[in-house]
C-alpha cells in the first residue's frame, strides 16, 4: 500500500474516533514509512457489525428473560460480551452447571456464595443481579 493511499476514514461509534492507528506503507521512493490513520471503512464496518450483533443478542436475551425462559445472569453475561465458556471459567463451574443457572429455576436455587461469584465476574453487587429489571436494563 502506498502512503498517500492509506485510508483516513473516521469511525463515529463508541469513541473509535478518539484513537488513530499506525499503518505501514511505502513512500514515493518505494521505502517503508508509518502513517497515522483514522481507520478504514472496511474495518469500521466489521467492528460496527460485531457491536450490532451484540446489541441484537442482548435484546433477544432480554425478551427471553421477560418470558421467564432465562435468568438475569443471561443478561449480564451478554452485557459483558461473555459466552458460557468464559463465564464458567470465571465462576469455576462446568458449562452445564452455568447453563442451569441461566434458567430461572437454577438461578432461584443459587447459594449466596455462588451469586457473589457471578457478581464478581460481572463487577456488580449481588443485589443488582437479584433486583434486575429488564425494562430499565442498559443496552449496548
Amino acid at each position, binding site marked *: *500500500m502506498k502512503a498517500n493511499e*492509506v485510508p483516513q476514514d473516521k*469511525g463515529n*461509534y*463508541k*469513541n*473509535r474516533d*478518539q*484513537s*488513530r*492507528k*499506525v*499503518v*505501514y*506503507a*511505502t513512500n514515493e521512493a*518505494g*521505502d*517503508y514509512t*508509518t502513517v*497515522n490513520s483514522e481507520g*478504514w*471503512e*472496511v*474495518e469500521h*464496518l*466489521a*467492528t460496527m*457489525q*460485531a*457491536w450490532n*450483533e451484540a446489541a441484537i443478542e442482548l435484546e433477544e436475551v432480554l425478551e427471553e428473560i421477560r418470558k421467564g425462559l432465562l435468568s438475569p445472569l443471561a443478561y449480564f453475561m451478554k452485557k*459483558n*460480551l*461473555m*459466552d458460557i*465458556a*468464559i*463465564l464458567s*471459567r*470465571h465462576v469455576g463451574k462446568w458449562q452445564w452447571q452455568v447453563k442451569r443457572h441461566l434458567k430461572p429455576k437454577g438461578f432461584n436455587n443459587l447459594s449466596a456464595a455462588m451469586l457473589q461469584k457471578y457478581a464478581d465476574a460481572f*463487577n456488580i453487587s449481588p443485589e443488582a443481579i437479584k433486583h434486575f429489571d429488564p425494562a430499565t436494563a442498559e443496552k449496548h
Partner: protein
Amino acid sequence: MHAHCESGVTTNLLKHYGIHMTEPLAFGIGAGLFFTHIPFVKVNGVPGTSYRSYPGTIFKTLMKSLNIQYEMQQFGNNQEKGQKALDDLLDRGIPVGLLSGIFYLTYMPEAYRFQFNAHNLIAYGKNEAGNYLISDPTLEGLHEIAPADLQKSRFAKGFPEPKGKLYYITNVPQQLDMEAAIRKGIKKNIWLYTSPPIGLFGNKAIHTLANRLEHYPDKLTDRQAVLYVGNIIRMQEEIGTGGGGFRFLYAAFLQEAAQILGKPELKEFSQRMTAIGDAWRNFAYSAARICKARTSDLVSYKDLSKMLHEIGHQEKAFFMDLKKVNL
C-alpha cells in the same frame, strides 16, 4: 506509537535499556508472521483466526536471538501473587510487559473493548492515587488504570488466558549481534510458516479457511456467515496489525534487513510481500462488501475463497523462494 502491541511492547522495553530498534525489526527478528485458523476454538461463537504467531513468542524469540536475559511469569489463578509480583518489579523501577484482556482496559476507546485476551501493554509505575501508569503501544499518549481493572484484565478468562502473565528484561549484553539475529528470525519464520503439517497452522491454514469460507452459505445462517467473515476482517485490520494482517509490517522488516545485511535481493522480497499485503487488503474489501449486502450469495463466497487460495499460493511461493536466498 506502534502498529502492533507485542512488537511495540518489545521495542519499548528495549528502549528502556538503551537499545533502539524499530518495530518492524522486532517483529521480524521475533518471527511474528503467521496464519492460524481453528474452526473448533470459538470465541463468542465465531471460529478463531489469527495472522500472527502465538502471543508471547515474538518477545521470547527476539530475546533469545539477541542473548538478552528476561523473565516471564504466569500465576494461574493466584491473583494476589500476580499483583505483588508486578508491584515489586515496579518498585524496583523495572518496566513490565503484561498480557491482558482488552475488555477490562478502561482507558481504551469502547469500540475496541471486546473479550479479546491477546493484548500486550507496559506498566511502568504507579501514581499517587495508586493507579498503574500504562504505556500502550497501539495508542497515542500515556494512560492510567485502576488496580482492580488491571487485575481483571490480567486474569481475564477465555482463549487465550493471560493468567497474569508478565515479562521483563533482566540483563542486556554489551554487544548485540543484530545481523545474526535477523538471519535467525528470517529462517525461523520460514520454518514456522511452511512446516506445520496440519491445516490449522501456517500456510495450510489459509487453504483450510478458504475451503470453509466457500461453504459458509450452505452451512450457516446469513447472520452467522456475515459474522464469521466480519471476524476475519477484524483480525486482519482492526486489531493492530499495521494493515494487511501484519504483511506490510513484515515487508518493512525485509526492507530494513536488506540494508543491514547488505542483501539487496531482500528488498525484492519486501516488494513481493507488499503485493501480498495489498492482496489481503483487496480480500478484506471484498469481504466487507459481502457483509454489507447481507446476502449469502454463493458466487461471492466462492470468489472470496478463490482470493484466499491465491494468497495462500503466493505466500507459500514467497517463503519457498526466500528459503533459497543465501543469507
